[in-house]
């Protein structure tokens, strides 16, 4: 039972970290929105899902890449990666803004109870995933391989493949940029002000609607980036790809303390590792069960997560 874990420990650790970085980026979508609205962005998994399709459409239809065992020539490869990354970020960001406009804004303006907002958010998430299911006829969509997944180097049996390294490096850079942005930029300060005290920040002249839209946009951009790395690694997507991944990323956000950006970083990485180890022990078919059990345990035993506020106390 533990043989696989011991045999392949370092290789598992590496893929756990790569998966963890994807979780980090998606969980930022949950955590940022939770910070300002004190509400879960239920449609974040669909925002991610739209990003994966954007990557594929750009690479396959727009740039005309076809599946080949070899990497594209370097200039074209760089162009593809840049366009796909930026494109999926933009698409996810736009979907996030759309979600906020349709599902949250009107209800917030009227001050209806949280249950109503929650249901409307679930509704929009269903609409988005069903829309994609119908236009893709429930079939998975393949991404043409643009990058030969060759090994760069090997340490202690862990195979540093080029896509793994790309994911880790890019995601880490994006995370640092976001962290700095929220800390020092004008908009970042406004976001933090709103998450501390909505009424007071309104009195200080902050345009609440704008800040909330921007928060959704930033969360969407991060999820979009994650969707690019997801497609780069797994090379396919489906209308329901966001469901399990979204649940896992949400769990990551809760582990780190939802509403806390650095918490999301540690939550994402630790969940990625735990998930990979657990799959090695229990078998992959119990993967989402493991994630869910972790979620419940964290919520019950330490609802504030590692760094965050106590979620139990937040109003329903």
């Amino acid at each position, binding site marked *: 039972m533990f043989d696989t874990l011991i045999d392949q420990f370092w290789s598992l650790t590496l893929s756990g970290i790569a998966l963890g970085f994807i979780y980090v980026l998606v969980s930022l979508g949950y955590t940022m929105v939770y910070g300002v609205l004190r*509400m*879960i962005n*239920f449609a974040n998994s669909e925002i991610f899902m739209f990003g994966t399709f954007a990557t594929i459409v750009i690479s396959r239809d727009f740039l005309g890449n076809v599946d080949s065992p070899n990497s594209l020539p370097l200039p074209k490869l760089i162009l593809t990666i840049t366009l796909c990354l930026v494109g999926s970020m933009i698409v996810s960001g736009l979907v996030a803004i759309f979600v906020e406009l*349709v*599902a949250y804004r*009107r*209800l917030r303006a009227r001050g*209806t109870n*949280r*249950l*109503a*907002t*929650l*249901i*409307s958010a*679930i*509704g*929009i*998430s*269903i*609409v988005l995933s*069903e*829309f994609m299911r*119908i236009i893709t006829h429930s079939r998975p969509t393949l991404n043409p391989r643009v990058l030969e997944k060759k090994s760069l180097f090997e340490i202690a049996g862990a195979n540093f493949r080029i896509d793994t390294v790309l994911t880790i490096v890019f995601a880490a850079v994006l995370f640092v940029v976001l962290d700095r942005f929220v800390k020092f930029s004008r908009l970042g300060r406004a976001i933090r002000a709103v998450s501390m005290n909505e009424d007071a920040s309104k009195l200080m002249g902050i345009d609440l609607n704008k800040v909330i839209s921007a928060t959704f946009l930033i969360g969407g951009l991060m999820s979009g980036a994650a969707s690019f790395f997801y497609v780069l690694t797994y090379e396919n997507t489906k209308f329901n790809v966001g*469901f399990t991944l979204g*649940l896992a990323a*949400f769990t990551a956000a809760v582990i780190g303390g939802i509403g806390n950006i650095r918490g999301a970083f540690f939550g994402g990485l630790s969940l990625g590792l735990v998930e990979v180890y657990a799959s090695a022990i229990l078998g992959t*078919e*119990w993967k*989402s*069960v493991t994630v*869910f059990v972790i*979620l*419940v345990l964290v*919520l*019950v035993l330490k*609802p504030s997560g590692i760094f965050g506020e106590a*979620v*139990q106390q*937040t*109003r*329903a």
Partner: protein
Amino acid sequence: MINLKESFKESNFRDVGAHIWEHASAVERKIMAVSFIGLAALLPFMGFGLLDTPVSDYGAVLVYPVGMFILMALGLNIVVGKSGLLDLGYVAFFAIGAYTMAILGTRTSLNTWEIMPIGIALAMLAGLILGLPALRLRGDYLAIVTLGFGEIVRISALNTREIGGPNGIANIPVPPSIGPLEFSLNDQKGFFWVVLVMILLTIWMIRRLSVRRAGRAWEAIRQDEDVAELMGVNTLRYKLWSFSLGAAVGGAAGVLYGSKTLFIAPEMFTLNVSILILACVVFGGMGNIWGVMVGAAILAYLPERIRFISDARLLVFGLALVITMNFRPDGILPRKKREKVIVKKEKNNG
């Protein structure tokens, strides 16, 4: 005495109905109730070929989805509508009921009516097991934990080879006949009457509980949980009650569904079912029995009838959720506004 002219001065249908009922005498109420139940019992004879759907005949549609959806929506309404707890894993209880029926029905000599209480008990037990940790959480967290629970039940069924794994369980026996009433797939009137009886029992249970301690506690929890707790309401206990009663109805529906479809598989119990039922509750009007029934009947029947919607059923239901919440958060038949009643009473007194 009933005075229709007065009643129709009320602003919406919910209030018109309430007005008629409030001003009816005991005998008139009985007549209304009996004639309504009689009318409902005769529904299978009222299709006249006009209400058949492209896929199946009217009698079958009346049992599933219409009757089943109404039953489950009433059960979920206890949780979502009465106590304001968002449960996205309602399908789990339905699945537990159906699997109880399938396992016991194919491996023991118990029949549907004997399995029914077992299925209900197991569903309630599952409700307690999930509720004890989950109901300490609020709002969105409860929603996500229940959602995860629904998936866990499905995945566990999928990965457990002893209960068929992805192949599910086939050859589930139909219920034995009660007197002259036979149960077969060709003529589903028997099933319809059983569903009807279950719906009536559920309505009776909800109405009884609503005016008693539990109902008042649920209402208080729904409006403001902190205040309810300060007033001495044991919130966790009443939330657990609401949760496991909802689960019981879901489990009962599951048992009947299992013995009606003859075959079940994990793929029938996805999150989509939970969403469909939630849409029925929300669309009709959370907390109002009549609203929930009308909502469930409409949302169950229309997609069967109109093929175009049938393919995009879930899309339509998602839209229904968003649009209802944005433009008519109380649904098509909103619950009676308590405040309105109080104001009216004061006017009458003064």
